[in-house]
């Protein structure tokens, strides 16, 4: 399946890009993160991140569909 990834803050720096399209066999967000963490050298464990699919927060077992937009969110630091 194909997914659209958006990256922010230190994940964007590590990936060297703000977004990308990936073709992957990963069927849920946890598997997709493991794949991308290995590829880009992300050091965050899933416990430190939140995840959003198609613009809404969700959980790590969320099943993905073709063309989903997936975002792994580093700990926030607004204000």
């Amino acid at each position, binding site marked *: 399946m194909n997914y659209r990834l958006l990256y922010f803050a230190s994940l*964007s720096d590590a990936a060297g890009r703000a977004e990308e399209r990936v073709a992957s066999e990963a069927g849920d967000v946890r598997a997709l993160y493991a794949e991308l963490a290995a590829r880009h050298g992300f050091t965050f464990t899933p416990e430190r991140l939140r995840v959003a699919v198609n613009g*809404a927060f969700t959980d790590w077992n969320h099943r993905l569909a073709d063309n989903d937009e997936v975002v792994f969110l580093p700990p926030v630091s607004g204000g």
Partner: protein
Amino acid sequence: MFAISEAPIDTLRLQHGLEADGAGAVVCFEGRVRNYNAGRAVNGLSYQAYIELAEAEGRRIVEEARGRFEIERVSCVHRVGDLALGDVAVWAGVSAGHRAAAFDACRYVIDEVKARVPIWKREHYADGESGWLHPDGTPVSG
């Protein structure tokens, strides 16, 4: 009202938006860029947001404040982009019949925004380095 803004925050205009005949108290909070953090001299900040989700989560927080406190008006705006020392990074304002609810609701909004809204701060240090910040205050390389 909650918004992410690329332009400087017009605090006076926002304050006028809190006016209501029943508002005996108005509390506004301004978060500003300061020149140090964790012992390092800071020249400026850059904020990045996942705008779609940040605005949705910010609106949720504002609605929660309405439900929890006896208030008239509530709004909050957070900047993104490059900010200089003294610039307003975030503004939260509440009007209410009485001061206790106004203080409590304003505190609630700013605390929840800092904890939940997907916005990230990058500090630019006087020595030329920069780094993304996390809630524990430790910079992440990049």
